């Protein structure tokens, strides 16, 4: 029975379809993560704005995103926007939008935290050397901020990759969905398929996320040694 279940993987285009599904997962994750990093930096600076109103709005945005389950956000954007604004986003665009909104909020908060952890004297030492504000940030503050941020950012990245599995529910055919399709197609002939396919999916996620957590660990150690 197990042999035939494993054979299912290699029937037709099944293996390739799984990898194609994985590519959809990775694509959604990568685009969202890239956007989140860029926008998150901006958001982090905004959160430190001198204007109280700006800080207040940032806080509300952050809390809103944090309180809402990602699934609800996905539904809200995919179904809600389509109904109310006649905005027909594809499932993949909606996913990227939601994951970017989420990633920006979280990344921004991490960025703000890292920025605040840089001691005041680092700014003053830089200023005393005659740096302009811009040079101060580029040469002194940002390199240190990013170093401190990296371990947690990596952590967020793996969380985002894993959470992409939710996009099945708004009809995006990614790796989990392809797996389900394969299982459905062979449900009656080879019942062992489910375990095999899901194991493969587990393995695929593992292959992506494990190296990232390893890198995060290593960075964490090097940052600890550095301070």
């Amino acid at each position, binding site marked *: 029975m197990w042999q035939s279940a494993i054979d299912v993987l290699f029937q037709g285009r099944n293996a390739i379809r799984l990898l194609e599904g994985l590519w959809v997962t990775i694509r959604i994750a990568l685009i969202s993560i890239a956007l989140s990093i860029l926008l998150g930096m901006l958001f982090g600076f905004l959160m430190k704005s001198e204007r109280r109103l700006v800080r207040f709005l940032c806080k509300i945005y952050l809390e809103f995103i944090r309180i809402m389950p990602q699934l609800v956000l996905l539904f809200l954007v995919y179904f809600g926007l389509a109904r109310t604004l006649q905005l027909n986003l594809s499932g993949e665009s909606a996913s990227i939008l939601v994951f970017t909104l989420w990633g920006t909020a979280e990344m921004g908060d991490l960025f703000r935290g890292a920025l605040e952890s840089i001691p005041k004297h680092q700014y*003053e030492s830089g200023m005393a050397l005659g740096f302009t504000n811009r040079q101060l940030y580029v040469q002194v503050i940002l390199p240190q901020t990013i170093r401190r941020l990296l371990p947690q950012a990596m952590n967020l990245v793996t969380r985002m990759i894993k959470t992409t599995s939710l996009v099945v529910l708004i009809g995006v055919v990614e790796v989990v969905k392809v797996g389900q399709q394969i299982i459905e197609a062979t449900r009656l002939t080879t019942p062992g398929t489910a375990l095999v396919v899901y194991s493969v999916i587990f393995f695929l996620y593992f292959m992506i996320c494990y190296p990232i957590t390893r890198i995060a660990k290593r960075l964490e150690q090097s940052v600890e040694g550095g301070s």
Partner: protein
Amino acid sequence: MKINQKEIILEIDHLEKQYEERKILNQVSLQVKKGEVIVILGPSGCGKSTLLRCVNGLEEIQGGLVSFNGWNVHDNKNKIYEVRQKIGMVFQSYELFPHLTILQNVMLGPTKVQHRNKEEVKKEAIQLLERVGLSEKVNAYPRQLSGGQRQRVAIVRALCMKPEIMLLDEITAALDPEMVREVLDVVLELAKQGITMVIVTHEMAFAKAIADRIVFMDEGVILEETTPEQFFSNPSTDRARRFLSGFSYEKVKEEEKVAI
């Protein structure tokens, strides 16, 4: 050289600094001539560190004037970074940039701020590091250095900008006692080379040895401004006398007898 020595490069005129209601500096006036070494003494909280920070615009002021080489430091706020390039400052907490090696720390200002030739700066930086006995640490990171070594690097980092004046803000206060000497020796060396310095310190013997003039402050006011010989042997104010007596100790055994 003779003419230069008379040239006033820093002039502080009726400086007022307030923090909320509290007056930190009250009508402080001080002139520093080129090549002069001025040591500011006073109890903690007397405003001496704040005074230094006002000189390179790290603190805003509420009144008076700080004029450096004719520049009004607090007026041209937007170009303050240009003035600061000429004013080297070393702080109590030896804050090197932890993400850069020692050499990179020293080279950062001259190359990025002053856009000087990299090779030339490197040569100079290594030379300066050699002079303070750190030639082997050139490629080390700050975390691998002791406090005293880091502080020597901080001095070199400021020096490499070729400043016209150095402000040293209690640079040995955070160091273990056995490391104080190595740092102060570097400063004594600078004084011998004729570098203009304004120094805030609690090391009395050092102050006596290095100062051309001692400025004694308390509660935001300059109470005395005199030669070190005069100040340490015969201060003219009671406040200074009490301050100085705080650094000598009575014999405990004799005191016991008196108490009995």
